């Protein structure tokens, strides 16, 4: 796993607002759910960027925007310099070859009426120029072997496999077009913990083998730390902190990240008593009507007047080594503090 400096995915000011409408015949917009609201980051070749955040912070919407399954309200998603968010028709179809997806639930992401061979072979049918007709069955068997499944099971149906095996089928489908980027939207959260380890190891092995870049979306901080080179923390549609995994986990600067990390279970009864536990008050505000200024200020213990008036930008703050979006950012090791 050797991330290079070459940027293959460049996301700038990505915004997705879902309109809220009222009325049956004459619909008028009364507001918008600001699911993703100004997200920018780069992804380098061979790198894994972890995206963490609580439910409803816009992680999955971000994944759909990156896959061009949703059209952004504004902003750009550039893959190798070309904007996927603006691409249409044949151009979009060609660009899709570079970005593929591994989905959360292996029980719903495979068509139950198709054989494994048809599921993994479908990318070749949609993009016939990737593999000539005669070689497809062999290619599918190669892919099955790559993800650690028996190539003889090409004619079986998804329900004949276990959850972990199904997720491997989903990964094989994602690999078929030889993409440079794979977006993993909670790829292991529907699996048993023991199977999670296998699937994560498989993803790491494939990354080495094919020099893949991952966007790894999860709410399990330990899993994200295990696989990621860099981590982005999202809160209410925005990235609040972005840095190398060691920076985020050992020297978190944003109060939200600190609170998030303090909630990670520690598998050590002794250490558990020593660590700091930050308990946030209240629920996340509605993304239809986010707070002014800093979105986290309603639950932040550091909040002052400036937080309500001025929105903190994602930048490197004095005394910290990586980008964070807080006026009062300050490195603070939550996990190891006594």
């Amino acid at each position, binding site marked *: 796993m050797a991330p290079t400096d070459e940027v293959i995915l460049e996301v700038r000011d990505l915004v997705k607002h879902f309109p809220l409408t009222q009325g049956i015949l004459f619909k008028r917009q009364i507001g918008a759910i600001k699911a993703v609201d100004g997200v920018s980051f780069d992804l380098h070749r061979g790198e894994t960027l972890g995206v963490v955040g609580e439910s409803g912070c816009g992680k999955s919407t971000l994944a759909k925007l990156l*896959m061009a*399954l949703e059209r952004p309200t504004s902003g750009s998603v550039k893959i190798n310099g070309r904007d996927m968010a603006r691409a249409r028709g044949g151009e*979009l*179809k060609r660009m*899709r070859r570079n970005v*593929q*997806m591994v*989905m*959360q639930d292996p*029980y*719903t*992401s*495979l*068509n*139950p*009426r*198709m054989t494994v061979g048809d599921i993994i072979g*479908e*990318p070749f*049918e*949609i*993009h016939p120029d990737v593999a000539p007709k005669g070689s497809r069955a062999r290619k599918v068997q190669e892919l099955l072997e790559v993800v*650690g*499944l*028996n190539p*003889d*099971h090409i*004619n*079986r*149906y998804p*329900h*004949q*496999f*276990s*959850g*972990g*095996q199904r997720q*491997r089928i989903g990964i094989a*489908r994602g690999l078929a*077009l030889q993409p440079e980027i794979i977006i993993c939207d909670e790829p292991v959260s529907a699996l*048993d*913990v*023991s*199977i*999670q*380890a*296998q699937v*994560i*190891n*498989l993803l*790491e*092995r494939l990354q080495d083998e094919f020099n893949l870049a991952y966007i790894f979306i999860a709410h*399990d901080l*330990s*899993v994200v*730390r*295990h696989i990621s080179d860099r981590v982005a923390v999202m809160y209410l549609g925005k990235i609040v902190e972005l840095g190398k995994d060691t920076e985020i*986990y050992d020297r978190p600067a944003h109060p939200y990240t600190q609170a998030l990390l303090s909630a990670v*279970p520690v*598998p050590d009864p002794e250490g558990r008593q020593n660590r700091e536990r930050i308990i946030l008050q209240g629920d996340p505000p509605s993304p239809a009507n986010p707070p002014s200024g800093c979105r986290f200020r309603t639950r932040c213990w550091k909040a002052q007047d400036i937080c309500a008036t001025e929105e903190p930008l994602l930048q490197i703050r004095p005394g910290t080594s990586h980008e964070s979006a807080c006026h009062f950012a300050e490195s603070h090791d939550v996990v190891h503090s006594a």
Partner: protein
Amino acid sequence: MSDIRPVGPAHPETEQDAPADAQVTAVGVPEAPPLQERPEQPDAVPVKPKGRRDKPASLWSDAWYDLRRRPLFLGASVLIAVLLVMAIFPQLFTSIDPYDAKTCVLANARQDISAAHWFGTDNQGCDVYARTIYGARNSIVVGVSTTVVTALVGGLLGLIAGFRSGATDTLLSRTTEIFFAIPPILGALLILAMFRTGNVWTVMLALAVLAWPMTFRIMRAAVITAKNQDYVMAARALGAGPWRIMFRHILPNSIAPVIVVATINLGSFIAAEAALSFLGVGIRSPDISWGLMIAEARDRFLEAWEPLLFPAFMLSLTVLAFIMLGDAVRDALDPKLR
């Protein structure tokens, strides 16, 4: 989703996850050493019940396997097979051709059961047994053709409405509501009154016009469910076009309820044909229909019960056979009932 997997003694998940419990904490601990890659057992596929070949098990093959073991299905199938032979080759069952006017001798009117006339004779002196046998064809033709037409029209429009949604859906759904508002028998009477003649095709048309909205609704609901499944999103992410998504992913996953309803409705269409012929607007003399025979025999029922009861019994038996078949198919295709 997983409930369509056949029940077998070896449950894949429990079997192979148990020894991996030792790794459970591995993901939870940050900076854990690389985990042991332990590929899942390739043969961890549910053991198939005896007598099933080692072929891919799809919903349809599972359903077929299930159906062959149902006495209800076997009974209905035998009955329907006999009825189909009766409809196609009535001369196998009787040497009398009831369409030949010479076989009716008015002097023999309203005779009792005898060796020459197994079911007696009717008001015109025609052989009731021969007429009952020959009546099967019209009933079956109306039932099958109406079912096919409603399934095709309702199914196709339902597929389009569910898939396209928006204005197309609104237009089609409101149109079906108009048809739902028409009382069925009154509607069929009105439609058939427009024709000077009555035969199987006019009856089929009247029934199909009134019955397609039901298939439409079932198809539309099934399509909307299937459309939001993850595998459809995965296909879109691969760059699949709308035709591929509709016919490769959505249709195979939404057709089962339509087939069930179509099979059950087939019996109702046969009953409706008899009702309309009884009322004098369906199939008309000299054509033969069970409904028509019942109508002709009802005035003299106390003098001769045979011309009424035998066709009525055949009608009931046919309707029952198709409804039983529909029930068996529904049970086999609905995995939740297994």
